[in-house]
């Protein structure tokens, strides 16, 4: 390597200053553009896959004035259920606290529910509170979840595995409504031994509801595209069959 004189090196180095500064700015700008391009690509991908990240839906069997029946709430892999608008599952019903329970999806098992302290929920009649082991009571495809006044049924998208129990039981044996009020408590043990579905509803001091108020059989339930569903939960009008419509095949008899 020929040895370069100090003055010549100085000239070269002084000239290269601008080149290096230019490179620095170029690298930053290129990285910035790449990041924006990635973001755009992700957004367009999410638009094509509106259900990305969700494992299924919770259909409202019984809600409240703000949560009409047959609303479908998309269920992600992990989140919070509560009555505040920022929750992943927004259930504005009496009896549901601001942050009521955490839920997390476990492959091969189902949706695990972890109620917060002082809150409770019922999975297919079995009562959970903050101390119980969530893995014993997973919510599976077709399972019924009762929180506060609300009753919800989980539909899991095809391709996702849940635990064997519960998938071949489309009709819940018993549904359990905990008492209304701020603290959710189970008033009665699971009614597994009773053959007749007992539907209890708190009304005017009496913890029980009249037996006429039974869950509607699925054939008579309006389809998701009926006008009764609020806009936000209506399926995308792309014409593409949503994955969740597959549940109709499960239910139809």
């Amino acid at each position, binding site marked *: *390597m020929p040895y370069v004189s100090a003055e010549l090196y100085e000239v070269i*180095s002084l000239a290269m200053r601008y080149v290096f*500064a230019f490179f620095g700015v170029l690298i930053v700008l290129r990285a910035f553009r790449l990041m924006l391009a990635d973001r755009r690509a992700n957004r367009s991908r999410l638009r094509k896959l509106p259900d990305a990240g969700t494992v299924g839906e919770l259909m409202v069997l019984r809600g409240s004035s703000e949560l009409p029946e047959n609303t479908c709430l998309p269920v992600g892999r992990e989140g919070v259920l509560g009555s505040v608008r920022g929750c992943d599952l927004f259930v504005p019903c009496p009896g549901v606290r601001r942050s009521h329970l955490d839920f997390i999806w476990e492959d091969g098992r189902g949706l695990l529910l972890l109620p917060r302290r002082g809150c409770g929920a019922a999975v297919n009649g079995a009562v959970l509170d903050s101390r119980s082991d969530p893995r014993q009571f997973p919510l599976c495809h077709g399972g019924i979840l009762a929180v506060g006044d609300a009753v919800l049924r989980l539909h899991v998208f095809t391709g996702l595995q849940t635990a064997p129990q519960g998938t071949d039981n489309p009709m819940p044996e018993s549904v359990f409504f905990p008492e209304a009020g701020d603290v959710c408590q189970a008033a009665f043990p699971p009614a597994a031994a009773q053959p007749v579905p007992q539907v209890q509803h708190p009304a005017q001091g009496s913890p029980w509801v009249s037996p006429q108020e039974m869950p509607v059989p699925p054939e008579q339930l309006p389809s998701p595209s009926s006008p009764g569903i609020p806009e936000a939960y209506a399926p995308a009008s792309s014409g593409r069959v949503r994955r969740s419509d597959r549940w109709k095949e499960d239910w139809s008899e």
Partner: protein
Amino acid sequence: MSRKRAAPKRGLSGLVALFFFLGFGLLALKRGTLESAVPALALPAVILLASWLLPLLFPLDRLLLSLVSFLSGLGILVLYITDPSLALHQMAACGVGLAAMLCSASFVRLHSRRSGWAMILGVLGLTLLCLPVLFGKEMYGARNWLDIGALSFQPSEIVKPVLVFCLAAWMSERRILPCLLFSALCLLLLMLQKDLGTALLYFAVALLIWWMASGSLSVLAAGLLGGGAAAVWGYHHFAHVRRRVEIWIDPWKDYQNAGYQLVQSLVAIASGGLFGVGLGLGAPDSIPIHTSDFIFSAVCEQFGLIFGACVLSVYALLIWRSASVARAARYRFHGLLAMGSALFLGLQAFLIIGGVLKLIPLTGVTLPFVSYGGTSMVSSFCLLGLIQGVESLNREALDGDAHLAMLGT
């Protein structure tokens, strides 16, 4: 419409490689020996290889890899100006760091359903932190180095990924007690080692992970107040904290003794001006500790303020990218993991650059990826590996969803 198409992903690593080819080539001209031309060809080749080859073997984020290779290469370049042997050590450390990054990324992928490991790692981390208190070697006023045979390393650096992992795991399950215990013990051990800068970092990251997971403003406020109170207590209690604050307020008073480091750093940055004095010119070795703590002043002197701002932007881009990875994560644990690592890297960079520019008092932490230091490099790459692991899980989940969507139609 073609203008909006994304630039090819390799564009960035190519730019970085070209930049280092020019930089090392210029330095080779200065030294005038044949062996000094070797890094000019070797380093860009390594960078290109790493950015092309590694993502084929392992799902990695190319953008993060390119940005980090830019930072590490910059460190090697600045070290090469003054001492080529240090540059060689740094390159070796980078290699070890890359391996560590792959290890931690694999760890995240394999153990994505957490919990079991958190307790084991937590105990391991605490023991590692205990060791310097018992057998430690004192350096720069803090007793946080450990000598094992020929190697010396800093446990407080190695425990950083452990802290992020454990806190993310426990907080995502809302198990507050192990979190609190672990953080408190870590802080206590660091205070005993008198490594106050790292203690500040640990405290800030732990508090922010807590807040991100729980969202309780009261805890955040209590934490900030407690931190402020601890800082005031530390100011009154420790003499060297007082000295550092005095130097920060007016380093010119005693510019030959106490304020020497800060004064030389400021003088170097002012000498650089906008475009720097030129690579290889100037006097970067007149800055004390220009290899680790004050390497940013050396960069500003050689390359100028514009380039220094670019280095700052690279750290900001790193944080932004990690934040989008954390937001796209499917599970809270992953999100906290990615963001916690990003916070460690970003806050550390902010602390040291702020200290060097006299915005805040000097805290004795190093610039991640750029500063000389094997342990610091390995731990920074480990943290990056955690982010890469979460990103690879995100990609897999997205692919899985696309697959599921096809099943449904």
